[in-house]
């Protein structure tokens, strides 16, 4: 509860700073960082039992906080902290007249994220989804003069509103079957109530739509490509991970009885088609940003394995996966910020001209591939073993298929590494090398910390999961 309230208050205060700060004021990001640190402190304190705002009678009806919620909120806040530190200059540049508004909108999105990690009622699910996505539609179109950004915003908005309708239809049907919006009475729901099952299916599909996985992935490449780089980094990491957690919360609240047998078949189909479409399309993309869009689809497919397994190991796995995936993607996008277009040939010979940048990028890409000694390995390992131990006759084939697709993903990730280390830049590329800006000192140190964290998680993944049981 603390996190929700402080995030929204922070957004309001940041909005008002427009009155006092000059344009492009550096103070703005300092202020935002201060709010983020407050968020961490108060969220952690709430986990220890220190609540500052406690609407006692109302709390449990709409929100439920567990150890996992606090831990995951902290993960989100830390990711957000790193995101701001890496992108703060670009956040000021993208639309100088509205930089305070941009920060306010980002904090509103965070409010929605905190609602989604802790909802206990379909009403709070709905409100959380909306608070999260409505500012995102705006952020996608923030580069107002750019037609690609406009198109991304319009497309994201129309499809997002459409999926909201489907979500609402699902909620309505569930209400019709159970007579309540709370998540708990679903336990009494038995499988004969077809109406409720159709409702669950609608909610499930609508949330998959928001994540952007296979049958509903078609908006992802255009939207991620058109959106300004800084906001793509935000959408591809924090937002994507949060919706998957919301989905997991929803499925976890239902009993096995009301999920039904066909649930696993649906998830199986979704995972395999997501992995296939994401990986095969990523192979043939002209630039790295579009490749990252498809690779984020494929990575979401791996995160959905938690929905297939539904056990403790999967909970630990999704936590590690969320952290590692977010850190790696943020690193890659922080480096993509330095390029004007980022085609594959732009990376030729980067290891010579910018050795440190190439090194960071290599670790992040290897981690996304899932090479041992990087965090990505354990993330994938936890997910696959959770799937394996969940049992069922499809578990083993699914694990094998996932491994094959992980191998395919290596092809396009290694394409970038190969360009950086083993391709010499063509003679005429003096012009191209000028367009690559060097990393600032702060960015270097932050990226160094992030890369160390990724490597550290590749050796001691339990450092994160042990917090689940305190």
């Amino acid at each position, binding site marked *: 509860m603390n996190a929700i309230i402080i995030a929204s208050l922070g957004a309001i205060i940041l909005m008002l700073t427009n009155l006092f700060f000059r344009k492009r004021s550096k103070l703005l990001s300092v202020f935002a960082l201060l709010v983020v640190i407050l968020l961490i402190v108060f969220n952690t304190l709430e986990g220890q039992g220190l609540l500052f705002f406690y609407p006692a009678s109302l709390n449990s009806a709409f929100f439920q906080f567990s150890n996992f919620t606090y831990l995951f909120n902290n993960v989100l806040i830390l990711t957000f902290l790193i995101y701001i530190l890496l992108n703060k200059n670009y956040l000021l540049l993208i639309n100088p007249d509205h930089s305070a508004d941009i920060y306010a909108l980002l904090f509103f999105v965070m409010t929605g994220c905190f609602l989604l990690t802790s909802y206990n009622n379909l*009403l709070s699910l*709905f*409100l959380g989804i*909306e608070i999260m996505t*409505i500012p995102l*539609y*705006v952020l996608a*179109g923030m580069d*107002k*003069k750019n*037609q*690609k950004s*406009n*198109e991304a*915003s*319009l*497309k994201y*908005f*129309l499809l997002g*509103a*459409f999926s*909201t*309708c489907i979500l*609402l*239809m699902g*909620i*309505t*049907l569930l*209400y*019709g079957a159970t*007579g*309540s*919006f709370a998540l708990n009475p679903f336990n009494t729901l038995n499988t004969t109530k077809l109406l409720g099952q159709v409702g669950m299916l609608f909610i499930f599909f609508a949330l998959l739509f928001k994540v952007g996985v296979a049958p509903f992935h078609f908006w992802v490449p*255009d939207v991620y490509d*058109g959106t300004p780089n800084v906001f793509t980094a935000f959408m591809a990491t924090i937002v994507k991970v949060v919706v998957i957690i919301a989905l997991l919360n929803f499925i976890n609240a239902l009993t096995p009885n009301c999920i039904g047998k066909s649930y696993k078949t649906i998830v199986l189909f979704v995972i395999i088609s997501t992995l296939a479409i994401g990986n095969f399309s990523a192979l043939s993309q002209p630039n790295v940003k579009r490749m990252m869009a498809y690779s984020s689809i494929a990575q979401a497919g791996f995160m959905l394995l938690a929905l297939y397994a539904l056990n403790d190991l999967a909970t630990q796995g999704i936590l590690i996966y969320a952290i590692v995936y977010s850190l790696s993607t943020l690193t890659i996008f922080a480096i993509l910020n330095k390029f004007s277009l980022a085609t594959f040939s732009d990376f030729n010979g980067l290891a010579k001209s910018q050795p440190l940048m190439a090194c960071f990028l290599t670790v992040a890409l290897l981690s996304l591939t899932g090479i041992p000694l990087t965090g990505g390995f354990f993330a994938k390992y936890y997910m696959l073993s959770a799937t394996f131990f969940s049992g069922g006759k499809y578990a083993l084939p699914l694990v094998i298929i996932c491994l094959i697709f992980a191998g395919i993903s290596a092809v396009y990730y290694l394409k970038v590494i190969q360009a950086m280390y083993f391709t010499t830049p063509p003679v005429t590329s003096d012009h191209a090398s000028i367009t690559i800006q060097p990393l600032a000192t702060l960015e270097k140190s932050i990226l160094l910390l992030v890369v160390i964290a990724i490597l550290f998680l590749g050796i001691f993944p339990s450092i994160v999961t042990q917090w689940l049981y305190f």
Partner: protein
Amino acid sequence: MQIQYYLYLSFILFGIGALGVMIRRNAIIVFMCIEMMLNSVNLLLVAFSKVQYALNAQGIDGQIFVFFVMVVAAAEVTVGLAIIVMCYRNTRSIDIGLMNRIKN
């Protein structure tokens, strides 16, 4: 009135709205079809809340939910129309198909 008639009506409206979203290319009309779908959901919610009332004299939360849907729809319209106007300023068109062509 029996509840299944409301179900039929609501689903038909929802389906017509979904059809409109799929076949129309004018962004404003697409958006209106989405509003139509939201309204069909609202209608069904009120009908279900009345069923709950008939069953066990509850069901007020269904109508409260309709209130929230309306609130959110209003917020969505504000942002959506701002986005559409912004697109129109740059491209002089609100045709979704045209937007796709510009990209290529």
